[in-house]
């Protein structure tokens, strides 16, 4: 089971990755598309720079360990997100700043119970119920994740402490990139806002990319 969870965790990660991503956000009051470029090293370091729309172009987010900084080209300032605002929306999407930071290892932070297996009652996936360990730094009360026989996750449901469904994340459009099966699209749907969603699509994804020294520094953030 731990292998399954690790595989699901790493499905879009490489030791060093470089991607072009488009994000589509639909809410009750607005719908907008964004295009961004991202660089990542392992799970700890991520740099995302917005390319489109023009109004937000150049806005960049640097994540190193548990910290997030936003760079704002319009005012030429870098702001560290304070702890109190980690639950806030990231770039107007349904993802929060916490989602960027707390890319927790499921196998480390949760206690899993397998509740479904491929082939069982016509199912094609493993279904694992995850309950956070006592001191794990996670915000969910329970997570239910579906992982295919090919170790690619397809669906995750996130519940709060009271067991109420908060949001659903799906992984779609699985393709082979550098010999690995990778879902190229993720859709996050909040449970309490019908019709709203955030869809992230990888337009290009390159694992084992060459990243210049100092990619994940505050200086690079401004570039």
């Amino acid at each position: 089971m731990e292998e399954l969870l690790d595989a699901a965790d790493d499905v879009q990660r490489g030791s060093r990755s470089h991607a072009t991503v488009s994000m589509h956000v639909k809410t009750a009051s607005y719908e907008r598309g964004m295009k961004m470029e991202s660089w990542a090293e392992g799970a700890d370091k991520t740099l995302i720079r917005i390319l489109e729309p023009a109004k937000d172009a150049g806005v960049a987010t640097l994540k190193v360990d548990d910290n997030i900084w936003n760079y704002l080209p319009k005012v030429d300032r870098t702001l560290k997100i304070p702890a109190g605002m980690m639950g806030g929306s990231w770039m107007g999407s349904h993802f929060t700043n916490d989602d960027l930071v707390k890319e927790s290892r499921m196998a480390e932070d949760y206690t899993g119970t397998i509740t479904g297996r491929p082939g069982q009652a016509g199912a094609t996936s493993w279904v694992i119920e995850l309950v956070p360990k006592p001191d794990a730094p996670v915000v969910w009360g329970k997570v239910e994740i579906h992982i295919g026989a090919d170790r690619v996750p397809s669906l995750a449901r996130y519940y709060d402490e009271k067991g109420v469904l908060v949001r659903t994340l799906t992984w779609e459009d699985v393709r082979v990139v550098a010999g690995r099966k990778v879902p190229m699209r993720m859709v996050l749907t909040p449970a309490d806002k019908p019709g709203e969603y955030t869809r992230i699509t990888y337009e290009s994804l390159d694992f084992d990319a060459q990243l210049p020294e100092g990619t994940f520094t505050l200086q690079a953030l401004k570039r």
Partner: protein
Amino acid sequence: MLTAMAWRNLWRHRRRTLITAGALAVSMAFVLALFTYMDGTYRAMSTVMVDQTIGHVQVHHPGFQATRSLRLTVADASARRAALDALPEVRELVPRLEGYALLGGADRTSGGLLLGVDPAVERAQLERRVVKGRFLADAPAREIVLGQGLARSLAVGEGDEVVAVTQAADGSLGNDLYRVVGVVASGTVAQDRSGAWVHLADLQELLVLPDQVHSFVVLSPSLEPRVDDPVVNQTLAAVRGVVGSEGVDVVSWWEASPQTAKLLGISDGSAWIVLCVVFGVAGLGVLNTMLMSVFERTRELGVMKALGTRPAVLVRLVLIEALILGLLSVAGGLALGGLFDLYLTTKGFALTTGDGDRLSTGGVFFDDVIRGVVKPERIVAAAVFLLGVAVLSAVWPAVRAARLDPVDAMQDR
């Protein structure tokens, strides 16, 4: 005839009558001064709690009060503002917009609530809270005034720059740079810690809410709005007539804040409790005086009865004596109370806390000097009340006088 007799009877014990009337007059003057003080305080309080906080009438999006959601705005703000300003039923119109933002100083960040105001309209209220620097200029110039706690947590002061980042209404990342021109001590912990004032136009730009506001706060011509005040209701109707009901809610202050309405209702009742207590004691004084006067005259009253005076006439005699005593007291009370009122309404009085600080509620300060408010209906009520108490207290002595047995009474020494 009976009145002349009562008058003469009263002056047979001049000192006692004067002392009783004097005591009643002083208590009436005290009650009048208390009313003037309380009505003055009440008006100051209602000005602070209603006029300067809730306003008399509020206009906002129907869902805004419950959710405080950024996007629930009133559209066409400038056209609506002009139309509302033109109404004779509108004394003052205050547009407001607000939004949470991440604020950053040179190297510290903190969350803050940006309050978009029209400085020209709100200057009178906000300027005197400025402890450092100045208030915003009338024209939008990317200036910001910070609550003192917020200024401390951002480690910024006058002249420093503050960046504000927020998720704008269109989903984009609104961000802008503001120059700190002043720091305010708002009086409430929440506003001191996270409040920041910027020009309405600057905030509309940051939040991408062009020509929109979250609320219009309207003041009616009423000086002291009460629950269901007809003047406020007229303004309510006039405002409704202008803004319509499409996408907007127009509510009175007592609907917007029932707690405030309740709170102000309590302070109104307390004046009457004091009046009852003071005049109750005064009534005991009259009772004592009249009882003594009846006891002293037992013999004389016995003679009157023996000569054929009917009991009802004796009752009337004693009651008229009490009434005259009451009238004397009212006259004295009006004279003395008038002096007190004159002082309270012209010189005024200060409301300060134990430390000598100015009193504030909900972040709004009371005026330095509060002036008393004289209401004719209060004076009439006090006078009628005093006369009523005087006459009522004399009922028992009067009945005693009427029931005297002439034979027994004439043997009294």
